[in-house]
């Protein structure tokens, strides 16, 4: 099954190697990995997606905790959460056939972020399936896609959720129950601005 781990790690040289090395040792391929600054100074937040057996989840989480630079790990599993990915797609487009792509971008609620006489760049944020959808449509014209750059997945639990670790580190502690969420919404092609 697919596992999604969200971890806070110290922002130091070599930390990513330690995390990646753990999966290498277990012979588990990392499908997606995004890292960036978090709300906490000195801590990066990463989202890691991998394929592993259902039972492996706890042990991977426990093994991640054993890394000294890992401060907190959340196994998102089936919990209500929002997952997004960013894609930059450069396509060949001349003034003659641009209009068609503009329509596509409109339908997929993407954006044009660069435009030249021979190409344009589309920025798209959304769930994986939506990005795949746009790419698929663009591929209908052979040779149109010049480059694709995808960020990998970023995941955040829905509702007010703070782990015991972050609480111990002084995060807000009034944990309210999770609001009822229609899980179908997860896959809806609706984007916030």
């Amino acid at each position, binding site marked *: 099954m697919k596992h999604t781990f969200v971890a806070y790690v110290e922002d130091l*040289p*070599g930390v990513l*190697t*330690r995390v990646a*090395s753990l999966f290498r*040792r277990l012979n588990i391929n990392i499908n997606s990995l995004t890292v960036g600054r978090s709300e906490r100074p000195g801590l990066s937040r990463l989202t890691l997606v991998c394929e592993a057996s259902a*039972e492996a989840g*706890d*042990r991977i*989480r*426990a*093994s991640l*905790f*054993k*890394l*000294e630079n890992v*401060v*907190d790990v959340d196994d998102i599993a089936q919990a209500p959460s929002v997952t997004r990915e960013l894609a930059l797609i450069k396509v060949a487009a001349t003034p003659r056939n641009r209009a068609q792509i503009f329509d596509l971008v409109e339908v997929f609620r993407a954006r044009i972020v660069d435009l030249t006489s021979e190409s344009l760049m589309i920025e798209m944020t959304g769930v994986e399936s939506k990005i795949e959808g746009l790419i698929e449509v663009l591929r209908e014209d052979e040779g149109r896609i010049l480059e694709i750059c995808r960020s990998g997945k970023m995941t955040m639990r829905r509702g007010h959720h703070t*782990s*015991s*670790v972050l609480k*111990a580190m002084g995060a807000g502690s009034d944990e309210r129950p999770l609001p009822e969420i229609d899980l179908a919404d997860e896959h809806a092609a609706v984007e916030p601005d």
Partner: protein
Amino acid sequence: MGSNADNQASNARHATPTPLTGAEIVWATLVGEGVTDVFGYPGGAILPVYDALRKFPIHHTLVRHEQGAAHMADGYARASGKVGVAVATSGPGATNLVTGIATAMLDSIPVVCITGNVSSKVLGTDAFQEVDITGITLPVTKHNFLVSKTEDIAPALRLAFQIAQSGRPGPVLVDITKDAQQGTAIFDFAAAKPKAYRPHPMLHVDEAGLEKAAELIRNSKQPVILAGHGISESGAMDQVRALAERTQIPVALTLLGLGAFPASHPLNLGMMGMHGEVWVNDAIQNADLLIACGMRFDDRVTGKLASYATKAKKIHIEIDPAEINKNVKADVALVGDLREVLEELLPRIAGRDGTAWLKTIAASKGESAVHDIKNLPDSGHLYAAHVVHDLWRLTAGEAIVVTDVGQHQMWEAQYFHHEEPRSLVTSGGLGTMGFALPAAIGAKTARPAKEVWVIAGDGGFQMTAAELSTIVQEGLKINIAIINNGYLGMVRQWQEFFYERNYESTPLVSPDFVKLADAHGIAGLAVKTRSEVESAVTAARKAPGAFLLNFMVEKEDSVYPMIPVGSALHEMIRRPGKNPLIESSKDN
């Protein structure tokens, strides 16, 4: 070590913040952490540190190979419970440590290794004797540091000591660039103290779990306590004993658990697993409850997992959450420090009658006990089991025994009966040949008043025999028993059992070990018959200095009983009765 270390530091010479070189900071921090002995080998990239050593009250043992330094630090830690420290230079000095570091990692031993590295300006340029030792040791250390600034040395070293000892202990490597050693910074031991250890959310001992465990114990008819290395690491000897005695539950031990529960205790069954006695493994297979205390269900202990103790519920008390449900599914997992967990559990446990179950186990000993070598008179043959049994008898079981890896290690585990924790020093998880001689130097350094015996095979002994001169240079009284059968014995045994006696590359030519010892200025004796064992051991014990005994034992003896790899715990190869090479009633 915590407050103790801080007290020692405040008594140390550098109690007030003082400008020191990085090299001086290394030693001053070690002094602050209570270190009195280190094991190492100098070289270019660590020379500033060595240059500063004479100013500090730390004894340095010069090793003959850096692998020896890591094993000595490991043996020091295993024998004393303190952190062992190894020092090496960059490049080959650092890579030579790796086997020793991995040995400590697999057995959860607190070791701090300090390596020099090239100057930070040339890091990553393939400079002379440069290797990426933090990269190389990443999977075999609990954590490691690359320190390139003088002011970072003290905090990194103090954190290294904290990490090495906390939770499930393990080795930590601190790699310090030469310019960091040469630079100057204010040394403030107190200010370098690591912040409180991060909370571990997966440590989990709750009321419900404790109640469930107590209930399982209350309702069990055929329970067994599985006693592991975690008992001595946690200092839970009294609590495990209290649990066993109150409930009359028998105790089976892992190899690294030996000594954590007294061998002479009536509830002690002995070692479990691949070379455990049949009745011990049968008791586990027939148990309805296993109480695993600080052990990790290693494959050498469980045999084939699918058929391991299928009738038993399992209570797993363990400090490392990653060990829970790894090999064996726990019905109740109490994830925390063993001593603390047992202290919470014990008040919930009432006395129970274990007579029927203990009688069943005792009855199953029958045949195996009869064939046990120690119960048989001298047949004229010299068997390793005789040697080990006599060593135990003649030392009254009070020596620290440091073994190498192989057949002799298993015979030691079977026939030397350990009463005290930390009296057996052996490489369990990694199974590192060449471990014994250097680890014994570490053990003797840590506990000079204790009698220390090395038991090694002729193969493993030759892997690190160069450390004989370290023994001489340090003037250590270490007794060495080589169990010499002219083979890489355990491999030969596997070839005998599983490879149709194809003894490929296992017959072994060795030097005359007594002459080799003599060349080092160490006295020695060769022993060929059982009747000579007692006088030889006595001579070794009486000699003022180190002594080597070369026991020329039966060449094709095997360790029995044995679970073949991939077989269930109850499918053991038993002691044969009629093979003339194997001790049997025929030898009478």
